[in-house]
């Protein structure tokens, strides 16, 4: 019995998350930059902020759950992403979780995001992208 079914499941979750986050991030960054003179649709922007806020909340919950600080359950965040964050942020986890909480508040408001907020989002997107590509490679090796 091959593990393709399990990998397909992992891949679907990771790729949907990666695509949602990158599309939303492009919208948010365009709004920050006003690139190419484009007007970003206000509804699109609101939706982008809201979906990114949900992802940030899921990341925060997943990290808290792994640290034994929250209620464990089925998470949208791939476990490998959570593990990477725990390794990378070891020793500064309370600050990281506080940054995530602040980021979520910023996203739920309407003011522009800070460079630090964008950096944090890019870091999360990078980890999710890397995990998606990794699962895809494993899937294709089957």
């Amino acid at each position, binding site marked *: 019995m091959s593990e*393709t*079914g399990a990998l*397909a499941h992992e891949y*679907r979750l990771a*790729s949907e998350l990666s695509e949602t986050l*990158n599309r939303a991030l492009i919208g948010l960054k365009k709004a920050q*930059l006003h690139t*190419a003179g484009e007007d970003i649709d206000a509804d699109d922007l609101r939706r982008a902020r809201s979906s990114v806020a949900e992802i940030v909340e899921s990341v925060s919950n997943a990290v808290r759950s792994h640290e034994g600080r929250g209620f464990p*359950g089925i998470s949208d965040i791939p476990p490998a992403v959570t593990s990477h964050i725990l390794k990378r942020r070891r020793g500064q986890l309370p600050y990281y979780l506080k940054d995530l909480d602040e980021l979520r508040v910023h996203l739920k408001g309407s003011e522009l995001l800070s460079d630090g907020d964008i950096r944090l989002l890019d870091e999360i*997107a990078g980890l999710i992208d890397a995990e998606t590509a990794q699962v895809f490679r494993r899937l294709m090796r089957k």
Partner: protein
Amino acid sequence: MEDLLAGLLRDLERRCVTLEGLLAALPPDPDTAAHALESYEVLERARRDAGRLALEPDLAEPSLSGNYLRLFERLAERVRLIEWMVIPFLARYDDADRFLTAVTRRLIDESRLPVRPPLVGGFSTQYYWTFPPYSVIAVPAGEAESILGLADLCHELGHMVLADHEVELVGTFPTALARYVQSGQAQMVADQRPPRYVDDFVSHFARWEDDWLLEFVSDMVAAFLAGPAFGFQHVRLCAGLGRSPYSPGLGEWAEHPADCARLEAIVAVIEIMGDVLGASRVRQLWADYMGINGEAEPADYKLCYPASLLQELAREIVGGCQALGVRTYRDAASGDVIAHVLRAWDEFLRDASGYPRYEEEVIARLK
């Protein structure tokens, strides 16, 4: 970067056109029509997305190009999945595939499984596998002429049910799993176990969360559907693969949990359903196999695969399958596919040398 990305996106667009051409040239077939149409739609969406992205005026904006590259990667993966995971089924759909597909779809109807009717192809190089997002199952070339292995179809169908009904099936098990890991870890620290041992324990259960839970769940759904037939087939498969039945243990890595634990998971479901005789026959066949295999149980095995966790998961799966309205093998009618598979196993275990003739007759009847 703009030129490179735009070029890659145009190349992907062209790939989509090529694959769409392949699909359009396939002979019409009611079995494959839905999969062909879905594949075409996925490719067409990817083609349009790639075309739109290639025209983005800010493709080269440094703060955005990384995000655009990731979007390209996801699009390219989507196209490759259709090309590698679906088109091979459609391009070679032959009589053996038609039989396997018909048997599987019959099994789904009879068991009232909430999954899309899959296409089944007899060309796998990786034993049985499924790709639930596109509802395809690949099996080895000889499976169209065999009944015993068909129980493994139920494992792949388990993956398909799980893909859409994870919460209903798994229930609160993740909480129990997390509790076990936390208390185990605390106990090890209190017992002053070496830090490496504690790390191995935590890594082992990270695998449970990542992949193995899905394998256990699919095994348990298969046990719910096929009962002892799936247990017997597990023994047959293990004997053929020659893997260590207790591996992976602490500090070891594998994409699947230990075969012995999988057997216990299967038996746990059969017992919960009240089939005492069926459970004991599966246990006995496993004991016969282990008697020949001769491998001894490692000291940490029960710590890695605690019976209490497997039983808790089995209760969730049986409850989940019942809530989804799935019919168990115990309610199968005499002419159902599962009843044929169960009788085939009885016959094989009763008289292996006379079995081939029996199997030929059953396959002829199913065809």
